[in-house]
């Protein structure tokens, strides 16, 4: 399985996380759903769908927490029969990132994912550039930016 990153600083922390947590699929994205790195996806359409859904889930839970007058939830886990889905947020020098992890229950566990997610958080925070958020993507450039990102994420 290939791990690829649009922003190079995310690659090494992600590769380490995938190896340690035995994760099947991982997406690192902004809270708006813009993908920064991925592991295990083979189709661009799957990446776009997962990123949009992951970002939407995080936005929904942030709003639930806001309505409950609580700080945002740190992480979410959904466990099925064979797979688990873990969503967590990381605050970096590039702003808030969302990490979506899919793991097989027969090779990994929630405990392992949580344990190495802590390490991923520290690694991303240490590796992230400190000069502020990345440039805004203008509507006019959106399609080209998206296409460039997907090309990078799939090594085209």
């Amino acid at each position, binding site marked *: 399985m290939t791990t690829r990153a649009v922003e190079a600083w995310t690659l090494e922390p992600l590769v380490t996380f995938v190896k340690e947590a035995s994760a099947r699929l991982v997406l690192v994205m902004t809270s708006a759903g813009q993908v920064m790195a991925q592991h295990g996806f083979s189709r661009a359409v799957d990446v776009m769908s997962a990123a949009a859904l992951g970002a939407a889930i995080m936005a929904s839970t942030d709003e639930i927490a806001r309505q409950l007058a609580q700080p945002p939830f740190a992480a979410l886990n959904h466990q099925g029969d064979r797979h688990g889905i873990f969503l967590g947020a990381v605050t970096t020098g590039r702003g808030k990132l969302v990490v979506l992890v899919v793991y097989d*229950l*027969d090779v990994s*566990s*929630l*405990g*392992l994912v*949580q*344990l190495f997610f802590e390490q991923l958080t520290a690694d991303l925070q240490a590796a992230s550039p400190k000069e502020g958020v990345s440039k805004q993507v203008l509507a006019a450039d959106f399609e080209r930016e998206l296409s460039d990102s997907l090309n990078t994420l799939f090594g085209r």
Partner: protein
Amino acid sequence: MTAPPYGPALDLVTRVRGVRGAMLVSGDDGIVVAEQLMEGIKGSAVAALASSLAARLRRAMEAAGVGASLFWHLQCDQGGLLVVPAPSGVLIVAVAEPDVNVGLVRLELLRAAEAVG
């Protein structure tokens, strides 16, 4: 419904001289259910890694055709990890010093597993 006696089950193990801590760990998830640990032991890390190891050992035992794991002991130069899986899937984990009475800890882990169910 009565809550399982997690505290007393852990007491059985931690009262043994040389035991630095005991935990009940969800075998499937690798999450801590209950713990009594000395300071400096990372309970969540031990739980996650011990449950991962238990799952792999279980598969190895199945592949070898020797049945289910009843007790395992990892001996290290500065201590050891002793684990008994309970029938419910919970792991009873003890973190011990190198000179601990392994036989006594094993006995108490088995009793704790019986109490937890």
